[in-house]
Structures are given as C-alpha cells and as structure tokens.
C-alpha cells in the first residue's frame, strides 16, 4: 500500500480588510487609495488600515494511504472546507505543501455547473466534463448514471422543472460514477433523502473497497462518517487536534466543546451564536425531568433578520428534538447580541451526554447563515425525584416520558 496524499505543515492565510465597503476592492478605491498614500508619503503622515491576518489553517500535516477512507470533522469555521479546497487545487496554500498521487475529483457541491435551462441529458455531459470525465467515459456510463438517478422519464426535460430531490439524485449520480484515484467529498449528502444517502454511501464504500480508491469525506453526519471512514482527522480552529481511528476522532470531536462559552468571531459567517448555555433549576446542573433554560446569544456582522433553531443531539449524532420558535425572527444589529431564552418545563432526556446545536437561517432552509451541531456539550444527571429506569442501557434509552399511574 502506498501513500496517496501527504500534507506537510499546510497553512492558509486570509487577509481581513477592515474597510467600510463590502467585498472586493474596486478600481476606483484602489486608485484613490494610491493617490492618498502618495499624499501621505509627501506630507509624512502615518499609515492606516493595515489588513488583519486570519489563519484558516495552520500547520496541518497528515498522510492518507491508498484505498483509505478518511473523515474530516470539526466545527463550522474549523477549516474543513479550506482544507478540501486546497486538496482539490481550487486555491493555493500560503505555506506548506501537498502531494497527491493520482487524479483528484472533488465534489464540494451537488450539481456544480448544472444549468437550469439544459435538459437532464445535457447536464449529465456538462457536469461530467466539469468533474473531469472524458466523453468516452461518460458515454460508457450514461445508462448506469440515469438508472442510478432514477430519472429515465425526465431525461429530456430542462432541470429547472425538476423537483429538488430529482435534481440532487441526478447530480450525485454523475459524481458517484467518477473513478478518480482520489475522491474528495464535502457535506453534499446532507441534501438528499435518507434512502438515497444510504445508496450513495454504499456506492462510495464499493468504489473504495473494490478499486482501492482513496476517499476524503467531510460531513456533519456522524453516523455517515462512522459508517464510511476508517480514520479521522479532527480540526479545531485551523489546527489538527487529533488523527486516529474514526471512533476516537468522533469522540474527540464531541468532546471538543465541553462548556463552550463565548466564542471567537466566526470570520466565515454573517451571524453566529456568541454564547450558548443551558441552566437547570438546581444551581445550573441539568437533571432528568427538571425544568431547564437554554440561552443563546446571537451576534451579527451586519443588520439582518434570522430565524433560530436549537437542536439537541445525542452522542451518535441523532437529533432528539428541536426548539424552533417558528414565527419568530431575531432582528440583529452589528455588535449587539440578541438573547433568546427557551424554557423547557421538564427535560425529557435520560442521563447521559448530549450536544446542543444552533441553526440560523430563513425558514425552510431557503437560506442558511450558520449551523453548528456541536455548540455546547452538556450532561444530564440523575434525579431520584422522578420515576425512570436508572440502570438502563445508556446506548439505547434517550427519551424520558413523564407519566402518572394507579394500581388496582
């Protein structure tokens, strides 16, 4: 077995320009700024507005063997996407080096380059070419792709008329039939339905096992990671926290945010939760069946409005429930945190470890500003004032259902 990917001291630096305007510098600004700096030099004035450095990745090193399936996990803003972009040669690193052995295909988004006006058939060819397949290869696999996507009847319909499910199936079908030596996959499965996700995971497993292909996989779906990957890399704020077997990596990831207090500014999001806490009635500790308060403070970079969803997930990444004030929009102003307090009358969770995730966006996932499934880890403690099966099997029982009873 030979090394397929080796990454040495990789770093990626971005310059955060503190300017009044948004986005790119314009030609006009550059010209006036140039004139101004000449003026300053003549008058001996001082320089202002030096850009701030931000390291999205720093000193990242790891190796991947041929045929290995490596999972990359980390919270939002940990540098996962940046790492994938460098590995797929979309952007260049600021420091360090990457050696790749073989052809790389990256799937950072479902349906990259799909054109709504073109038919399914036309898009298969276009998307295939964009992902690096040759026309001969595409012709050979065309029927297989169509069958995998289950869209035979709509092959000659423009994809703008497709349902979102069909769209995703078609897009993934093309990608699943890529046969590169190295396949890089970002959070793309999240959009499909569960059954199709399963099918895709199976396909990836098959590709990697039978043909000794290397797979790099990023996901928030811990089950999918556990199912597909043999090894994992945990990223935290641009640095590698752990490289090891997948179950160890998952444990480390879930542990990485015990008591997450106020967080640093997230340079990649417009708004983010700056503080997440959960308080039980009993001096802060959270016990089964107790009333609890979940408090989330949301910060933003600009004036905007957002909906908020708070989810509670178990250690395996299963969602247990959402706290989602469906009709509420938080009105955010820059640098002015807004606090949302959710009250739960009786916490219906068995003792164990859980995580709180925060989602910010517009309802129906039209727009997603922020999503981190692991903002805060908390423990539910025992409480002998309520009736529950205290020597239960912690792997299987999660939900506590309050009840009353009578005998006779």
């Amino acid at each position, binding site marked *: 077995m030979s090394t397929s990917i080796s990454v040495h001291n990789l770093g990626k630096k*971005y310059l955060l320009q503190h300017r009044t305007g948004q*986005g*790119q*510098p*314009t*030609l*006009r600004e*550059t010209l006036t700024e140039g004139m101004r700096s000449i003026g300053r030099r003549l008058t001996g004035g001082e320089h202002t507005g030096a850009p701030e450095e931000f390291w999205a990745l720093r000193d990242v090193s790891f190796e991947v063997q041929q045929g290995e399936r490596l999972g990359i996990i980390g919270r939002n803003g940990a540098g996962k996407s940046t790492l994938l*972009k460098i590995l*797929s*040669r*979309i*952007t*260049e690193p600021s420091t360090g080096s990457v050696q790749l052995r073989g052809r*790389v295909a*990256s799937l*950072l*988004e479902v349906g*990259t*380059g799909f*054109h709504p*006006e*073109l038919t399914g058939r*036309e898009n298969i*060819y*276009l998307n295939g*070419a*964009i*992902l*690096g397949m*040759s*026309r001969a290869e595409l012709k050979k696999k065309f029927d297989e792709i169509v069958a995998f996507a289950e869209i035979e009847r709509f092959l000659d319909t423009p994809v703008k008329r497709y349902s979102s499910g069909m769209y995703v199936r078609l897009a993934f079908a093309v990608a699943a039939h890529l046969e590169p030596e190295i396949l890089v996959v970002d959070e793309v499965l999240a959009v499909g339905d569960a059954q199709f996700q399963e099918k895709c995971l199976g396909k990836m497993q098959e590709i990697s096992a039978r043909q000794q292909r290397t797979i790099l996989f990023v996901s928030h779906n811990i089950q999918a990671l556990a199912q597909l990957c043999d090894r994992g890399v945990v990223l935290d704020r641009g640095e590698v926290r752990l490289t090891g077997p997948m179950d160890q990596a998952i444990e480390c990831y879930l542990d990485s945010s015990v008591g997450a207090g106020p967080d640093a500014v997230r340079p990649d999001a417009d708004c983010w939760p700056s503080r997440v806490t959960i308080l039980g009635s009993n001096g802060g500790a959270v016990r089964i069946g107790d009333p609890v308060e979940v408090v989330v403070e949301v910060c933003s970079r600009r004036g905007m409005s957002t909906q908020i969803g708070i989810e509670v997930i178990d250690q395996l990444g299963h969602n247990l429930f959402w706290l989602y004030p469906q009709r509420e929009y938080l009105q955010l102003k820059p640098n002015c945190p807004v606090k949302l307090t959710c009250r739960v009358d009786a916490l219906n969770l068995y003792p164990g470890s859980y995580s709180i995730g925060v989602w910010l966006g517009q309802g129906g996932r039209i727009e997603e500003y922020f999503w981190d499934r692991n903002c805060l880890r908390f423990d539910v403690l025992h409480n002998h004032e309520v009736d529950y099966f205290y020597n239960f099997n912690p792997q299987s029982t999660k939900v506590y259902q309050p009840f009353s009873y009578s005998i006779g």
Partner: protein
Amino acid sequence: MGAAHYWRDLWRYRELFLFLAWRDILVRYKQTAIGIAWSVIRPLLTMLVFTVVFGKLAKLPSNGIPYPVMVYTALLPWQFFANALSEGSNSLVDNANLLTKVYFPRMIVPASSILVNLVDFAISCVILAGIMIWYGFTPDGHAILFPLFFLLALLASFGVSLWFCALNVRYRDFRYVVPFLVQFGLFVSPVGFSSAIVPEQWRVLYYLNPMVGVIDGFRWALLGPAFKINGAGLFVSALLVFAVLIGGIVFFRRMERSFADLV
C-alpha cells in the same frame, strides 16, 4: 506547480473547454427567441448607419468599392472582437460557482467564451457573402490570406480578454470600463471609414491600435488591391497583438492562483 504541468493540464481539459462553449451556445439560442436574428440584425443596422453617415452624408471615399461592402468587411472582425471582449471579460465572474468548486486550468473559461463568438462570426461571414453577391462583387486571389488575418483577430481578442477578465475579478467596477472601451474603439478604428483618410505621416502610428492592422488586413484580403495595406503598420499591429497576448498570459497566470479566493 510547474509551467509544463499547467499546459499539459490545459490539454487534458480540452473537452471541458468544448463543453463550456457548447453549453453557452445551447443556452444562448434556447433562451432568446431572437437569438440568431439578433446576431444578424445588429451588424446590419450598424452597416446601414455607417453607410448613410460616413458614405452618403460625409461623402468619405470607399476606393471604388460599394460603401456597405467596405463597412461590413470591417464589421466582421470588429463585431467579433467587441463581442469576444465583452463576454470574455465577464466570463470568470459569470462562472464564479465553477471557480470556487472545481479545479481546472482557468484559462479555459475566457477561451471558451471566445469560441462561442465564432458562431456569430460564421453567421456574419455568410451575410457578407450575401452582400457581395447582391453588389456583384467577387474577391480575388488575396482571399487566400483571409485565415491569417482572422487568426490575428482571434489572438487579439484572446489577449485582451485575458487582461480584462483577470482585472474584472480583481476590481469589480472594471466591468463598467469595458463597454466604454469597446464603444470608443469602434470610432477610433477604421470601421465606418477607410484608413486611407488618415494622413500619410500618421499612418504607421495609427496601427498602434492593433485592430487597425486586423481590419485593414480583412479589407486587403477580401476587397483586393483597392485597399493597399501598410506593411510597416501591419508589422506594428501584429507585434502589439503578440505583446498583449504574451503579457496577458503572464498576467493571467499570476492572478490565477488567487481567483478562487477573490471571485
């Protein structure tokens, strides 16, 4: 990444280059009901206006050739150049979603946008043939040099596009500069008139606009001896085209590594 590697990649991705062009052609003629008609009407109307204004009103010379034929022969490369430039300079920004999601040599994008314009160019060629038949004009043996001047037009368009599309990614307001330059160029290039009206002593200087060389070349090749080409001038134009092209490639390659972060 080595330079040799880059050119090898460019060759490997040649199918993507064709697919992108094919997509744009397909979309263009699917979306606009007057898709093809538009590429016919625009140069025809321009020809009409120039013939009336420069030929009939200003009574500029056309060296014995029907004025519309003279104008349209120049419009052929000019329209190609102008369209390739406007579309080429926006091509990277328009394909931003591709640039941030997949790797391929970025030069494919402006190149394929120029390829798309070849369809319009071909249509224009057919129309010119029609106009020539209408006026009973037959090109002579010079016409064999036509592909050479067409190549020059192609290289000029590609060279300038490389500069413009890279600048467009870097400076977002550059897109407002391009239409102005294109419009300005139409009037300083000998499209509506013959370059013979430029005084002799300024002639070589006039060829510093590379499109002068291209347009005069087209007229010389297609309309024959009535349009003498200035050898020194043509050399100056060709030299400039190559300078712009090579400079463009170097500039583009240097900017390329930051495209995905900027766009």
